[in-house]
């Protein structure tokens, strides 16, 4: 299957997942955490990551049981040729909507913050075409690009946080338990599906040589994301205070605008926007690849690439449907996140079926060795 050539190592995989999840930190994700935890938003970030790790375990287990296989192949083998593709289609539909929301979300963010006069359609078309190109080059190319760009994207985020530290007022992080640990716990549980994009790794599972690579990619990616989210919201709340931070949909942009080291360093938002674009494109490319690969697998198509352009066209058109920015936020918070649990339930279901039916990939070579 020439279309699926190329492999992702544990490092590339974890960086890919970290970028896919971490790009949300440029958007409204920190706002969710602050609304859940208030001054204790950093605790919510860690709890969400912890729940995310637990929810990702079935994916890890499937990776060990079916090394080198993607979601479409696993579901067909475990759930049969009718129910299996249906499950894959459901997952790919969710990933497609995640791509759609990402596309519109980043577009709206760019329009609101930096290019107010640019028509959204121009940004949507540009983003879609670039992500189609990246997805066309394959998942390996997307993952390697994520790895190559990680220092730039991470440095961009980290520098903003470091330069913001002098403005941090630690009192704003009190009361220490925010709205109460029980409320933080329950709220974090609601947003635990923020890590649902980990399903992308299972969708492109064929790119991982063994279960161990998939395990490291999933767990490390979520863990890194949790730490980055905790640091971001701690600095955000420490500067803006929970009431203002809760209203701040572009937290890193907000922080970057505040960086002011005399006349020497200011207006760093111009820099952060560049990292924003890179992170957004990697997220979009990964989601687009995962959607097309799952779709092709469910429909038993030999290659996913012919699907990319039509898929991008449909998603671009649909992304213009939400009437405004608030509608996009609602779509993400009230539909995408709850449905993320359903998506994460698919690997769990598949794993249970595989255990009950005693299904596993035929042991062969290195992959079987790791899986045992």
């Amino acid at each position, binding site marked *: 299957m020439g279309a699926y050539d190329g492999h992702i190592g544990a490092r590339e995989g974890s960086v890919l997942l970290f970028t896919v999840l971490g790009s949300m930190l440029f958007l409204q994700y920190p706002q969710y955490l602050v609304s859940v935890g*208030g*001054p204790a938003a950093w605790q919510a970030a860690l709890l969400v990551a912890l729940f995310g790790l637990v929810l990702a375990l079935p994916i890890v287990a499937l990776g060990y049981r079916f090394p080198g296989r993607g979601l479409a192949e696993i579901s067909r083998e475990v759930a049969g040729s009718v129910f299996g593709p249906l499950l894959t289609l459901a997952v790919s539909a969710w990933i497609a909507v995640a791509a759609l929301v990402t596309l519109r979300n980043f577009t709206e963010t760019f329009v*609101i*913050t*930096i*290019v*107010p*006069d*640019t*028509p959204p359609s*121009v940004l949507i*078309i*540009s983003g879609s*075409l*670039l992500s189609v*190109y990246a997805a066309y080059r394959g998942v390996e190319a997307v993952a390697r690009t994520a790895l190559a760009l990680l220092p730039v994207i991470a440095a961009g985020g980290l520098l903003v946080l470091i330069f913001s530290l002098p*403005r941090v*007022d630690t*009192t*704003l992080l*009190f*009361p*220490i*338990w*925010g*709205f*109460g640990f029980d409320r933080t716990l329950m709220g974090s549980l609601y947003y635990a599906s923020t890590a649902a994009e980990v399903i992308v790794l299972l969708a492109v599972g064929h790119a991982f040589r063994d279960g161990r690579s998939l395990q490291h990619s999933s767990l490390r990616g979520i863990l890194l994301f949790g730490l980055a989210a905790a640091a971001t919201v701690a600095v955000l709340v420490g*500067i*803006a*205070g*929970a*009431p*203002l931070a809760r209203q701040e949909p572009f937290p890193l942009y*907000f922080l970057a*605008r*505040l960086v*002011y080291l005399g006349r020497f360093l*200011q207006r760093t938002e111009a820099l952060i926007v560049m990292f924003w674009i890179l992170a957004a494109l990697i997220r979009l490319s990964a989601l687009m690849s995962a959607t097309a690969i799952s779709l092709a697998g469910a429909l038993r198509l030999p290659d996913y690439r012919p699907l990319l352009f039509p898929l991008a066209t449909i998603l671009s058109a649909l992304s213009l449907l939400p009437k405004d920015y608030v509608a996009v936020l609602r779509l993400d918070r009230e539909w995408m996140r709850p449905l993320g649990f359903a998506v994460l339930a698919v690997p769990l279901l598949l794993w249970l079926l595989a255990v009950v039916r005693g299904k596993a990939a035929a042991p062969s070579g290195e992959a079987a060795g790791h899986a045992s």
Partner: protein
Amino acid sequence: MRRRPLLGALLLLLPLLTGCWNKMELEEGAYVLAVGIDEGKGSPYAVTVVIAKPSALAGEKNGGGDEPPVLTTTAEAPSLASARAVLHGYVGRQVLFHHTMVFFVHEELARTKGLPFLDELLRFRQIRETAFLVVTREPAADFLRALKPELEKDPVRFIAQLTYHYRTSGTLPAASQIRAVASLLNVGYAQPVTYYAALVDEGSPAKKGSPDPRVGYAAGELPRQGGIPVEMIGAAAFRQSRMVGVLTAEETRALLMLQNRFQSAYAAFRDPRQPGQYVTLHLRRGRPTRIVLERLGERPAIRAEVILEAEVVAMPSGVDYSEPGAQEELERAVAGQLEETLQALIRKTQEWRVDVVGFGRYAIARFPTVQAWESYSWPERYPEAEVHTSVRVSLRRYGLTLSPTRASEEGSVQ
């Protein structure tokens, strides 16, 4: 060969990425350096803008000559952004707020209506949250028209340089940025203060302040002659978003000491052995101010300890305070006078029911949850709080001479 069409397609896409829709040449913009906000007559606000004239600001060598460096004009509108529409009726260039560094607000507006425009300052993307907020005793439009510094061409740079004096004189609050004010308006443990400025009419018998810390100076009260007719010293205190009072320069310094943000200042104190004479010291923060919340409950109790170091700069009375016993006497006297100011500040803020020091910071950590903290209602407890202050001053140095100079001895009354 197969790559050529793809490459061609990508090249065709490049024009889409240039952001041409937002393109604007530098000379097409009218960059607003400062904004004044007063209550309007026909509209909610009278917005005064100070627009930079880059060629005039650049100086004579670059062709500026005697041309005024800024254009100051006022437009009535319901908001800053909508004031642009009015301004665009007679300002040819596009009015932009990206470089606005200071927002001046008329005291009357700040007292009666608060800061209702703050929402726009936080929401409008052209405005930066790092800009300063200054309350002016007179209408902001009048203040901005009188703002013609003599040592600087750029009036906003002049204001920015005044703000640095909080580090060397301690007579201005440490922070008066939009972001700092907005974040404090939303938390219950402290209330914001901003810079306070006033116009001076040397001809009128205005109320004058006093070097005595018990009276102090506020903007518009400085005992001086000459210079430009604007002053920025002291602070405006807010309860929620409404201004409730003015802190003098001395009280502002005391505020900085309690907030642990005082750095250094030259200050004169009544000579303990020679009434009517003053000892001038260079004060520095010795150790971080210690604030202990001793008790919560109905009437919270707070203990604040300020520790300073000092160097004698002027001792005209001729008394030799370098003698061991005398040195302690001077230290105690200076500490006592500073304590009077601290207590005056606390009394004033308790009367105004505003915790501008931020004692609430030490209370909030005692509460496990936001709900418990909010139900305690610190802003209502603060006016009843017992605040005990103590000041410790250690005289470390006596300047370039140790004993009194001959001129001092001659001038002294032994």
